[in-house]
């Protein structure tokens, strides 16, 4: 098998970029209102439709998809476990709890304040997950995400209990279910921060790859292991917090996209990261389009579509013949 060659990676990157471009154009074209491409430059109404609704939505989908997939890739590399992602390490649920706390304690908190508090919670939740994993005696491949799921369940239950008492159950539902239907100009721009986080991860890619080789090798080549771990998980937590606050949680993404991508181009993050970002963007673009088209002119939330599709892809990955999930 020669799938790790640079050329494969270049081809994969090119294909992924082309797919994202095509889906982006489709995303611009599809919506409740009819868009007449020929009239965009002449008709101010049509232009407004594009700049206020369609471009923000498409950009939001691309940014959120890319950021969540990259967050998953980072977490898998650093924990050396292919099952670990924001969904399975408690990161998303901790971020959700953070948003609720922000809303309760600081009524009328700005979006940036919410992101800040969600970030603190997401990071603390993920750090707690890692501490627990270190204490795990039986560190089997599957035990690690299982622990994360339990931890996430505790965060979610706490969130729901507090939300129930404060009459905020519906509000919480909104954050925990990613949906782009509310995205218009002025209500998505924070997602560029998630995009920036993904870019920062690319700059750190070499260090993250080295840290992914494990503490001993990382230390041997003089890498500050703990600091790199904290920085990587910080970036992943930040991306997750921004996405949860702005459009809501998108499940599975951080799990399946990095797994498919590393299968194709290997685990060197400098190579895998751009493809993962594009793959995440493409998947969410496709799911968002499906959500917008199946009951047009109404919509299904993107998280539901990703959930259905993601479960299928994950099953296929697990049941694939000779798959690496079977190995511990």
């Amino acid at each position, binding site marked *: 098998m*020669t*799938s*790790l060659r640079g050329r494969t990676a270049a081809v994969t990157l090119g294909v992924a970029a082309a797919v994202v471009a095509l889906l982006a154009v489709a995303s611009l074209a599809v919506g409740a209102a009819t868009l007449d491409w020929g009239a965009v430059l002449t008709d101010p109404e049509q232009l407004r439709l594009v700049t206020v609704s369609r471009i923000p939505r498409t950009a939001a989908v691309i940014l959120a998809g890319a950021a969540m997939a990259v967050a998953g890739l980072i977490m898998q590399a650093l924990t*050396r476990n292919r099952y670990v992602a924001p969904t399975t390490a408690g990161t998303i649920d901790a971020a959700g709890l953070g948003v609720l706390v922000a809303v309760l304690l600081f009524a009328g908190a700005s979006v940036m304040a919410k992101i800040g508090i969600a970030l603190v919670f997401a990071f603390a939740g993920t750090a707690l997950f890692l501490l627990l994993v270190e204490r795990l005696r039986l560190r089997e491949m599957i035990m690690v995400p299982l622990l994360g799921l339990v931890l996430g369940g505790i965060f979610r239950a706490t969130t729901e209990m507090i939300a129930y008492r404060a009459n905020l159950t519906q509000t919480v539902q909104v954050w925990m279910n990613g949906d782009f239907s509310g995205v218009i100009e002025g209500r998505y721009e924070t997602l560029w921060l998630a995009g920036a986080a993904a870019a920062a991860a690319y700059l750190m890619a070499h260090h993250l790859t080295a840290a*992914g*080789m494990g503490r001993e090798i990382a230390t041997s*080549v003089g890498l500050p292991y703990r600091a790199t771990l904290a920085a990587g998980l910080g970036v992943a937590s930040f991306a997750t917090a921004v996405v949860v606050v702005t459009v809501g949680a998108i499940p599975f993404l951080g799990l399946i996209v990095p797994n498919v991508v590393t299968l194709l181009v290997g685990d060197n993050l400098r190579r895998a990261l751009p493809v993962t970002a594009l793959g995440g963007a493409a998947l969410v673009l496709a799911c968002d389009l499906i959500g917008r088209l199946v009951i047009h002119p109404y919509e299904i939330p993107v998280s539901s579509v990703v959930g259905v599709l993601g479960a299928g892809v994950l099953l296929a990955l697990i049941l694939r013949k000779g798959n690496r999930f079977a190995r511990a």
Partner: protein
Amino acid sequence: MITLDSLTKSYDDHLVVDGVSLELPSAGVTSIIGPNGAGKSTLLSMVSRLLGVDAGTVDLDGLDVHRAPSREVARRLAILRQDSHTPARITVRELVELGRHPHSKGRLTPACHAAVDAALARCDLADLDRRGLHELSGGQRQRAYVAMVLAQDTRYLLLDEPLNSLDLVHATALMQLLRTLSDEHGTSVVLVLHDINYASVHSDRIIAMRDGRVVRDGTPEEVITEEALSDVYGAPFRVHHLDGDRIAAYYR
């Protein structure tokens, strides 16, 4: 010179390394031998700062190994542990390039590429450099890890049971490679070895440990003797002279 001063480590109540003071030379091949549980690997891990010490210090040419910046240490000392295998799908070349991290922080210079190529060639991996680690046999993978620490280009090279997954031919080739490295580049090679005959044939100095302490320390002539080995391992040994080497027999 690496100076170990009263290094101590215990796990729970069990003392694994018991106040070891030693000087590891700045040249030559030094082997550490001893029965299982003697504390050899723990000692090597402490010397290379992979493991914290309970007490004692390690001085590496004036650098306190446990306090100095890790990267500073990594330019002078490389360590390969026996169980460093990773599930990561990276190529042999990418692994070996990691060895250049202390010099380049990931931005490889022409000198780095030259060092990587040289390390690959030395380990007989030049043709496999684009292969994924996960596609290699156990022995090839072990050689790839050795190439990584060679590429690090350090004065001191510490290896914990490097022969473990190698067949006879590759084990001998690796020992010859380490011997050459020491003779031609002046690298100080320190290894933990299970096979006392490899230690006997290729070392300048042999340190024997038992129960967390150094019980013998000297040239192969001094340590590979029936009396000394029986004392170290608590079992009978015969030592034969074969073509100028001292070969210990313990099979019957």
